[in-house]
């Protein structure tokens, strides 16, 4: 069920992942929200900070997620898609339909 609790959980996972990524950039330490200087900042020291609030948003300007080619059968605009690549959902579906037709199920 993709309810509010699920969305909160997914948001926390994303925020944790983003915080993990930036922790290594604080090589010279960092002041936490309580004004204590930490040489090795942990995730706890980022809670309530500007970074934490920024990372809570789902929006992104990164190329891999913003310009990602997203498949949808209802999409009007056509675009180039390499169907030879493995792991494509729609390609699997085409193959599956072929097999069904061979056996006369569909």
């Amino acid at each position, binding site marked *: 069920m993709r309810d509010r609790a699920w969305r909160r959980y997914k948001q926390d996972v994303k925020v944790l992942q983003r915080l993990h990524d930036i922790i290594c950039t604080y090589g010279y330490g960092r002041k*936490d*929200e*309580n*004004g204590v200087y930490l040489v090795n900042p942990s*995730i*706890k020291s980022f*809670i309530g900070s500007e970074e934490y609030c920024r990372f809570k948003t789902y929006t992104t300007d990164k190329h891999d997620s913003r310009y990602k080619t997203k498949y949808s059968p209802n999409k009007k605009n056509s675009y180039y898609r390499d169907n030879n690549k493995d792991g494509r959902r729609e390609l699997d579906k085409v193959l599956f339909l072929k097999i069904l037709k061979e056996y006369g199920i569909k």
Partner: protein
Amino acid sequence: MELSNLIPSKSDDWNIKKGTLFYKKLQNIPMAKIDDDVVYVFLECSIPRIVIDLVRHLMKIGVEFYFLPPSWSHPATVIDNSVVIKHYFTSYSKDKFFIGFNKIGFDMMGNLVNWCKKEDCIPLIKENYNEINKRVQKTYYDWYVNKEVSSYSDDIREEFRTLYRDIQISMIL
């Protein structure tokens, strides 16, 4: 007195482990502990709304409580009363605590004086107050708007100007 009585809401985020009350926000953050029938609340600046809710609840049930810096939740921390007093002042100078505590009618400086009387460290108040007040009253000239600006709001700066007088009155009372 039990820690479970201190939980202000029915939320699942509150939990108790090893004699400490925690609030879960990404990770478990220590919020309160009981020592000799006195509640010590960790004044965590990263989650002010939760701390204010907890203080409101403690005022409602009428228990004796004092604040401690969150770093004191770690057993290896060196105990220094000056750090606690400084943390009282720095937290009070933050917008969210200043507005929140005034809204619920909590006298934070009275609480500080009571803690200092208990720990017998009243002379430390003056030096820590001077240090934080100097930081709060500091202004710098902004050439874009051609006037003096401060990183603290006017209400907080006004309050801090006469704060030591209020502390002295609390000492007498």
